[in-house]
């Protein structure tokens, strides 16, 4: 698997990268592959305050519709406009240029409930 080791993962296939009080969130490569090519993406509005597992977006493919859930609590301070305009970014580079949102978080926010890359690899193994 190619899940970066510097990210933390939710069981619902979102990743989070924490830098100070800013958390960048996206969906994993596995999620994109399961969904198949995205045809529609909607993201939470700027300023929205979210708790763990609140819906922060919807992503659709030809075959299915999936919610995107926040892995951590925070306030939405940025959405990836480039990804909204070009869904290929999410499809081709979900861990990079295809990131989805940034949250402002409490710098002491706990990531203990999330999986590390090894644990997430194990979760998706066998698919």
């Amino acid at each position, binding site marked *: 698997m190619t899940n970066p080791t510097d990210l933390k993962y939710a069981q619902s296939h979102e990743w989070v990268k924490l830098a100070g009080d800013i958390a960048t969130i996206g969906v994993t490569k596995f999620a994109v592959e399961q969904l198949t090519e995205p045809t*529609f993406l909607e993201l939470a509005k700027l300023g929205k305050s979210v708790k763990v597992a609140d819906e922060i977006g919807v992503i659709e493919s030809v075959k299915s519709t999936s919610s995107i859930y926040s892995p951590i609590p925070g306030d939405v301070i940025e959405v990836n406009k480039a990804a909204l305009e070009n869904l290929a970014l999410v499809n081709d580079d979900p861990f990079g240029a295809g990131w989805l949102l940034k949250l402002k978080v409490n710098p002491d926010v706990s990531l203990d409930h999330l999986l590390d890359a090894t644990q997430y690899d194990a979760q998706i193994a066998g698919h």
Partner: protein
Amino acid sequence: MADLRTPLHAWHVAHKARMVAFGGWDMPVQYVGIIEEHKAVRGGAGLFDIGHMARLSFTGPDALAFLESVFTNSVASMKVGQVRYGLILNDRGGILDDILVYRFRDHFEAVVNAGNREKILDWLKQHLGELDCNIVDHTFETVMIAIQGPQSVAMVDGLFADDVSKLKYYFATQTTWSGHAVTVSRTGYTGEDGFEIVIPNALGVPMWETLIAKGAVPCGLGSRDTLRLEAAMPLYGHELSEQIDPIQAKLEWAVKMDKGDFLGRAALLNRLPALPDRVGLLLEGKRAAREGSMLFAEGSAVGIVTSGSYVPHLQQSIAMGYLPKNFSPVGTELLVDLRGTKVPATVVWLPFYTRSKN
């Protein structure tokens, strides 16, 4: 459930298809991607393993009379080699299946939906009565391959002992390929020109690879679904069920009330006139409606979506569903509930997509 495999199963797995359970079979949903496969069919030629579809034969002196008694379309008026779409109805006029009947010189064949194979076999045997007709299920002896798209005719040209490029739409011929018996029909489920080939199991992979070598793109059931949706072809279990009659489903053209009695005819004569109708819907934006999405008008739920997707060729969000007559006219504006968000939609003419004919 999905323990049945076509003779192409190992090929699909070896070529990294994503496999899904469908109608009791383990089938490919996509190889590279639904959008690319969909576009291959609209612009070139796509190849589908449809070996899961049930293939039945009807022989004996009463085969015609029997089929006439259980099939909604006219059988007696079919020419030798002709293929006809129609329905098998229950006593209440509900749709048990939608099938194709093939007429050959000395017998008939039918192609039945995979998930309905056992139900239809039981139903047919139950209603055979005293008629002298032998029904045989050939599903496990043969594989069925569809080649669909504007380039199909060029790719099958010269392949068979007979010139199948001369076949008219909805006609079939029994011919040979490398000396082996095959049935080729000019039929399909994508809204494009194309052929469906029934061939003995052992020749499945060689035929499949021969067509790929000619440029046909392997396609899974995912694109088969979006292609048939654009062409507004109903899918059993979605638009069609035992609770829906053919008039609601807008399939009256495949029901010949004047041909004489058939199972379900009496119920259709006595049906309530005001049942909901199958409609086409065009949604605002790119979000897709899905099976079960509710349709709202004047503040209340009035109907339900049976199939919906953002479709690759038209690049629109389209759906089919059922609406009562006061909301089913073309141009009616509604709201579709997409998981809590109400998106505007308009009733439009079906089909959404029609191929240009040369």
